[in-house]
């Protein structure tokens, strides 16, 4: 039973390293999906949103974690 519990915890931990980052990434992908599917914009705009959004989120997450940890 403990093994099963550990496996489930491991699987969740693999994709939810930090809750806020996970939610934000899902939000960025949702926005990009809406831009691609429900607007007349070039689909590459959606691609740029995914790429730049995720890179900005990464930098912000590392920076904020450092600040939170130090304070």
């Amino acid at each position: 039973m403990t093994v099963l519990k550990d496996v489930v915890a491991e699987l969740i931990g693999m994709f939810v390293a930090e809750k806020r980052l996970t939610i934000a990434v899902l939000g960025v992908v949702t926005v990009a999906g809406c831009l691609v599917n429900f607007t007349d914009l070039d689909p590459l705009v959606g691609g740029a949103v995914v790429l730049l959004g995720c890179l900005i989120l990464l930098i912000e997450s590392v920076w904020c974690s450092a600040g939170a940890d130090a304070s």
Partner: protein
Amino acid sequence: MTWSIAAPAITAAFLASVVEVVEAFTLVLAVATLRGWRPAAWGTTAGLALLAAIVVLLGPLLDHVPIHSLQLAIGILLLLFGMGWLRKASLRAAGIIPLHDEDAVFAAAAAQLDQQTRRQQRNLHWVAGITALKAVLLEGLEVVFIVIAVGAGRGLLMPASLGALAACALVLIIGAVVHRPLSRVPENTLKFGVGVMLSAFGVFWTGEGLGIAWPGQDLALLLFAALSLPAGLVGTALARRSRMELAL
């Protein structure tokens, strides 16, 4: 097979597997050192058998998922997984969280097994075997995910699997020779590199899944990796500066 996407897939599977297999090896070695090779061997074998069963049972299901849905699901999971690795590696590089230390992991596992030995005198081999099984299963799950994630989208499962198997063979051979935790493996550098590659794959597959035709097709992957690397480094630099400012 285009090498612009096959080479990063194989390299990512190989490097990520090195990281995971080194971690599993440390725990199996702790079991073997304290309780002998028999429980370590059966725990490892059982862990590998469970992983194989998971792959055999779930692998064929992937063929029934529409390609765009599969690419989108894998892309999002890769983004979450890769960015998680990159974030952690950046925080470790900046000194915010301690570096992964195989010697410390070995000592902690040994202490835990020792404690369990004192608590219950019976079934010691069982407890030790389960420890080895858990180590192989939990670290192996990540390897299986990475192989599927970088390989499934373009029929690269076999090359990615070979990359992972090569990593297993390499770690086991070195481990058998040195017979101690592989603490000199630059774990954080590997994790940083793999995080960059998996994040790039994540952006690529998410875009493909959404129906975006990337300019340059597979070569776009290299551009995403080239942009993810400085993003990780900028994050590290900002975190380090933030830490130093707050320390003053």
